């Protein structure tokens, strides 16, 4: 996204802050941001406003060899740019937001439990806490820099997109979808939801004017649990049936593939039929290499692949989905080399094609096209847009993740001493050994 102009990032667009946000203005700038009240600073600095400013921002005014004041702002000042980076003292200073601050300290947005869990397991440790400090320092210094503070959702854009006020330092009760949510969740969710990929339509919910919070009604400040090992394990995630009064008896597709474990054939996630092609990623590296033009570096591409559900969330509704959309995630064996961390001995024990929930839902997609072109579809032709047989066999086969696809990709994945490690990591997701004979004449 295009960064804001510098003046848009910093200045409030009113004569006084009280005009913008009387509640927080009553708390006062210094209470949250630190520094010295300007009146006090000015009185201590006598008649030089530069010295007053230095005192207000709590940095020492500098003088040259001749004793002349140097009018230059230092890089480090005593005030906090983002007071919510210390939320426990600044957002809960007078008990104002005690409950939310306490919850948020353990939220997925703050802690990224799933990512930490996988980093530890791939590196050969039971938990993130056991990981060596070198690995933790690298991760926390780079990967978590936009995950996130109160202010980066409720006052400004996140640091990851260079910040800047949402609306002149007015606290927003509900974050803005474009300036906050998809500022971080942009390359996958944002692009998918807005239909940015060639040939795709926007998500039907976006076309209807809904934003993230229409579906995501779980508390994004967390629920206090600290044992999550995946974001898909979080309680209260949106489910299609929360709004859509759908059932396994609606139509032939649902009857045969409803994802509750009781369908006539195997259960599919809703995304398998109702998603369009979506963003996949390759070769993410630390140290900023992911954002460089390194030809062997990070890349994104659009694909759609149906694979086996290897998620381990026993109590979660998606656990009964046997066939799901899977996304290539950019986890590379030497991905942390820029931090000086080379070892991920268990890398090939964990998939790099993972459960995906593409945010580009449509009722009619290439997989359900038969229902659009022939509303009187029957058992005789309902399978034609998806099963790997019949007149569209080759086209339909490209929607599944086969071992042959893994073979063709393994040479594109960097950092592997043995390319077959990539096969070992993902063989459980591939469909070759488990696809029904009724689906597959491939």
């Amino acid at each position, binding site marked *: 996204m295009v960064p804001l102009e510098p003046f848009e990032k910093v200045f409030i667009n009113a004569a006084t*802050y009280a005009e913008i946000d009387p509640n927080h203005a009553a708390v006062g700038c210094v209470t949250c941001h630190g520094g010295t009240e*300007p009146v006090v600073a000015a009185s201590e600095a006598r*008649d030089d406003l530069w010295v007053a400013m230095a005192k207000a921002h709590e940095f020492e005014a500098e003088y040259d060899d001749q004793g002349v004041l140097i009018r230059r702002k230092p890089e480090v000042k005593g005030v906090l740019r983002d007071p919510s980076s210390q939320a426990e003292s600044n957002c809960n200073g007078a008990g104002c937001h005690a409950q939310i601050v306490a919850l948020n300290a353990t939220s997925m947005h703050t802690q990224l439990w799933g990512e930490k869990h996988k980093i530890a397991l791939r590196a050969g440790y039971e938990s993130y806490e056991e990981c060596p400090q070198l690995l933790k320092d690298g991760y926390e210094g780079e990967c978590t820099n936009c995950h996130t503070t109160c202010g980066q959702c409720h006052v400004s854009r996140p640091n990851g997109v260079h910040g800047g006020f949402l609306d002149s330092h007015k606290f927003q009760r509900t974050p803005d979808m474009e300036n906050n949510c998809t500022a971080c969740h942009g390359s996958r969710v944002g692009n998918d939801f807005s239909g940015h990929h060639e040939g795709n339509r926007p998500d039907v919910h976006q076309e209807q004017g809904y934003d993230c919070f229409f579906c995501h009604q779980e508390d994004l400040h967390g629920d206090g649990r600290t044992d999550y090992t995946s974001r898909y394990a979080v309680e209260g995630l949106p489910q299609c049936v929360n709004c859509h009064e759908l059932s396994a008896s609606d139509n032939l597709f649902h009857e045969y593939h409803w994802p509750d474990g009781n369908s006539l054939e195997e259960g599919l996630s809703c995304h398998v039929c109702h998603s369009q092609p979506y963003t996949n990623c390759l070769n993410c590296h630390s140290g900023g290499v992911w954002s460089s033009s390194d030809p062997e570096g990070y890349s994104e591409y659009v694909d759609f692949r149906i694979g086996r559900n290897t998620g381990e969330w026993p109590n979660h509704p998606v656990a009964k989905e046997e066939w799901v959309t899977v996304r290539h995630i950019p986890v590379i064996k030497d991905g942390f080399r820029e931090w000086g961390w080379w070892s991920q001995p268990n890398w090939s024990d964990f998939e790099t094609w993972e459960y995906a929930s593409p945010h580009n839902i449509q009722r009619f997609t290439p997989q359900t096209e038969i229902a659009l072109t022939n509303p009187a579809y029957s058992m005789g032709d309902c399978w034609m847009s998806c099963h790997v047989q019949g007149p569209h066999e080759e086209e339909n086969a490209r929607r599944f993740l086969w071992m042959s696809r893994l073979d063709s990709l393994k040479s594109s994945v960097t950092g592997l001493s043995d390319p077959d490690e990539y096969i070992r990591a993902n063989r459980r997701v591939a469909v070759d050994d488990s696809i029904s004979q009724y689906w597959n004449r491939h």
Partner: protein
Amino acid sequence: MVHPHPASSSWSCGLSLVILALLLLSCERIEPVRQAPEMGAESVVLTCEGCHTTRAYLRRLAIDDGSGGGGGGG
């Protein structure tokens, strides 16, 4: 009763004069408010908003480039 040594008294007086002179000299080298262009010449800023508003920023820009602001449009 202890009397100060005459030499000590004059030394103390001299030192005070030197300090006073140094203070005066250093004060002269700090530009007074009216000559501090980046802070806004006409006002004494006693609030955060005195600097951190768009209006204050534009005012400082106008002072910095010497154009007096305005212009443009259309």
